């Protein structure tokens, strides 16, 4: 009988195919490659945008032109040629459908492969999706419920038309166009995204989800999301991407802005599963995301993310704790395998008094991958009694991968209490043998150990998302044994 070694384990992990790597052939309309002011204008025109929006994009473009791509992250890659990218792609409009039978069979197939049948989706009545491909009735029901409460949830391109004052007031206030290279680029060329507004004192009665928007061409590449929770409101927002692998957009640079006004709470959960590239490290999405939240007095924002995809991930969902007593939370699981590289973490900027932040980061590395946590806890001079707790755990599989932790702390107020804990562990052969001895095969054992390791974060996800996330973790790490 052959010995099962770390090498075998590594071998197995490599042979895992990208299981969601199918794609749906939806006809789309694409611009010529390259980027200049005319392209920015054309995008804006295509979307029929008001002049202020066009100007806003142009300003961002001019800033971007002067900027350099950052290279401080612990990732190495060949820098994209920004003139080799097509900056606009929209699916050709399709005619309205009357019944399920008329739905594109390819699309139905996609849903099936995702393991979520349309029927099942309908039953998940708690989830409102802004584009439900199949059934008009479900979408209308959701729209009605949301509408009665005054909640606005729609593609940002529509919001620019229908609620220009709201969008104009908030867009770019948390992530200014000048913030960083990718944010500037996104501001200039963003294709679409979601807009959400919860009125004063309203508790959004369902999880808002963009789950099914993924297959819509063009929304993925430069997505722009803006969520505004007015005073005393609450919303839980899910951003899911068990995306088709065959994504021609190698570069993704999304921007997400969250605004939690006084006493409001926003929960923002992400599952990211962009194509990670093959076992040799070729292909794969470069994911450079800017996500930031602004918390006013007594407001609370929680970021929860499960990152299993992309060849390169550069992502630091952050909270600006501007108001007194505001709370920021960051719960993250980042999985890297093969040649994937992730540099992810958070920034907690404490400006108000009695502000509190919690950071729980779980990094899982396998193959030849590199997984870095980068976090900043900043305590401003006026942030009396600010508190932070950070915990960064790394789990290694095999000997060729790496886990790195870069915690930065800046304190300008001596009343701050900051705690940082970090651990690194390895899935050991002893653990695997123990599970095997109880009748659990290695594949299942790895899933069990990884789920146990990630539990604190998985528990923060809404139920139906947690199940999906767990499935993704298993898919990203298991090889088919034998």
């Amino acid at each position, binding site marked *: *009988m*052959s*010995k*099962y*070694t770390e090498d075998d384990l590594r071998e197995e992990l490599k042979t895992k195919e990208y299981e969601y790597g199918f794609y749906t052939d939806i006809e789309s309309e694409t611009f010529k490659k390259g980027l200049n002011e005319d392209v920015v204008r054309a995008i804006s025109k295509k979307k029929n945008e008001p002049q202020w929006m066009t100007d806003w994009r142009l300003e961002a473009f001019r800033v971007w032109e002067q900027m350099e791509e950052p290279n401080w992250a612990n990732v190495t890659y060949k820098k994209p040629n920004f003139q080799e990218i097509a900056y606009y792609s929209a699916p050709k409009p399709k005619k309205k459908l009357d019944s399920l039978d008329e739905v594109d069979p390819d699309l139905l197939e996609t849903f099936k492969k995702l393991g979520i049948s349309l029927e099942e989706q309908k039953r998940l009545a708690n989830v409102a999706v802004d584009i439900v491909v199949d059934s008009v009735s479900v979408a209308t029901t959701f729209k009605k419920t949301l509408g009665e409460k005054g909640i606005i949830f729609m593609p940002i391109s529509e919001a620019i038309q229908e609620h220009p004052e709201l969008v104009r007031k908030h867009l770019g206030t948390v992530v200014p166009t000048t913030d960083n290279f990718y944010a500037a680029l996104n501001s200039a060329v963003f294709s679409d995204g979601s807009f959400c507004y919860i009125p004063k004192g309203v508790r959004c009665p369902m999880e808002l989800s963009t789950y099914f928007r993924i297959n819509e061409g063009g929304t993925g590449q430069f997505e722009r999301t803006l969520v505004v929770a007015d005073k005393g409101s609450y919303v839980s927002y899910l951003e899911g991407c068990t995306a088709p692998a065959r994504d021609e957009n190698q570069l993704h640079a999304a921007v997400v802005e969250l605004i939690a006004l006084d006493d409001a709470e926003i929960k923002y959960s992400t599952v990211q599963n962009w194509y990670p590239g093959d076992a040799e490290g070729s292909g794969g999405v470069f994911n450079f995301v800017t996500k930031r939240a602004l918390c006013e007095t007594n407001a609370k924002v929680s970021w929860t993310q499960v990152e299993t995809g992309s060849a390169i991930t550069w992502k630091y969902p952050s909270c600006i704790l501007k108001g007194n007593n505001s709370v920021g939370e960051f719960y993250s699981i980042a999985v890297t395998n093969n040649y994937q590289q992730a540099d992810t973490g958070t920034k907690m900027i404490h400006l108000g008094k009695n502000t509190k932040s919690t950071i729980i980061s779980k990094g899982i590395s396998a193959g030849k991958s590199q997984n870095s946590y980068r976090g900043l806890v900043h305590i401003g001079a006026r942030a009396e009694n600010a508190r932070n707790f950070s915990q960064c755990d790394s789990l290694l599989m095999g000997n060729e991968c790496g886990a790195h932790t870069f915690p930065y702390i800046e304190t300008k107020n001596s009343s701050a209490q900051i705690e940082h804990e970090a651990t690194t*562990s390895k899935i*050991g*052969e*002893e*653990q695997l*043998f*123990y*599970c*095997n*001895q*109880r*009748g*659990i*095969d*290695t594949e*299942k054992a790895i899933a*069990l*150990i990884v*789920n*146990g*390791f*990630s*539990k*604190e974060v998985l528990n923060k996800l809404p139920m139906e998302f947690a199940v999906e996330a767990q499935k993704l973790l298993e898919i990203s790490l298991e090889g088919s044994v034998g």
Partner: protein
Amino acid sequence: MLKIENLHASVEDRAILKGINLEVKPGEVHAIMGPNGAGKSTMASVIAGNESYEMTEGVIELEGVDLADLAPEERAHQGVFLSFQYPVEIPGVSVTNFIKTAINENRKAKGLGDMPAKDLLKKIREKSALLEIDRKFLSRSLNEGFSGGEKKRNEIFQMAMLEPKLAILDETDSGLDIDALRIVASGVNKLKSKDNAVIIITHYQRLLDYIKPDFVHVLYDGKIVKSGDASLALELEEKGYDWIKELV
């Protein structure tokens, strides 16, 4: 039930087991005794299929099934259970979740579906009562922060849940205080039947006061150098292992 013939095993090219012969029939209790480093745990690991050890020669059969070519989980599916001398920790995985997974994986191997939650709960209640385990304990992470005694009791709880044909208890008595020892021993006695068998590895007589062995074997330097009935254990207790060295 279990037949071991001329078993040789080595680790990193160093021979540890040097020709072991052992036959265990259904309903029997065998005790393996011997000084530290004799190879007792190695023998248990090799039977269970731990791939850190290379089986270089010999036969291991369970009810006529050749175990040598089976993966550890397949041996478990055949009914082999090992209570570990040093159980490992699995952070974040509760005892309940672990045992549920184990039971369902064993059922899957037999072509059965998952055990219905109701039945599982009933079984957990029954077996934790048998071993006087506080059910709060079952929601803790597997072996994480457990005392030595808790770890051992948890091993026997798993054995009770999985109902193996052959249970090998590797130094289950170490780490148990006298009350816990009595509880665990009485649990093992209640789980015993004419259809299953137990191998108890220990180097003290203590546990054998509670679980009466039908046979006692002395393992020394990778070989069984003496076998006898329960009285051999008492003799060893009295004369010590130096007496065995003289026999070799």
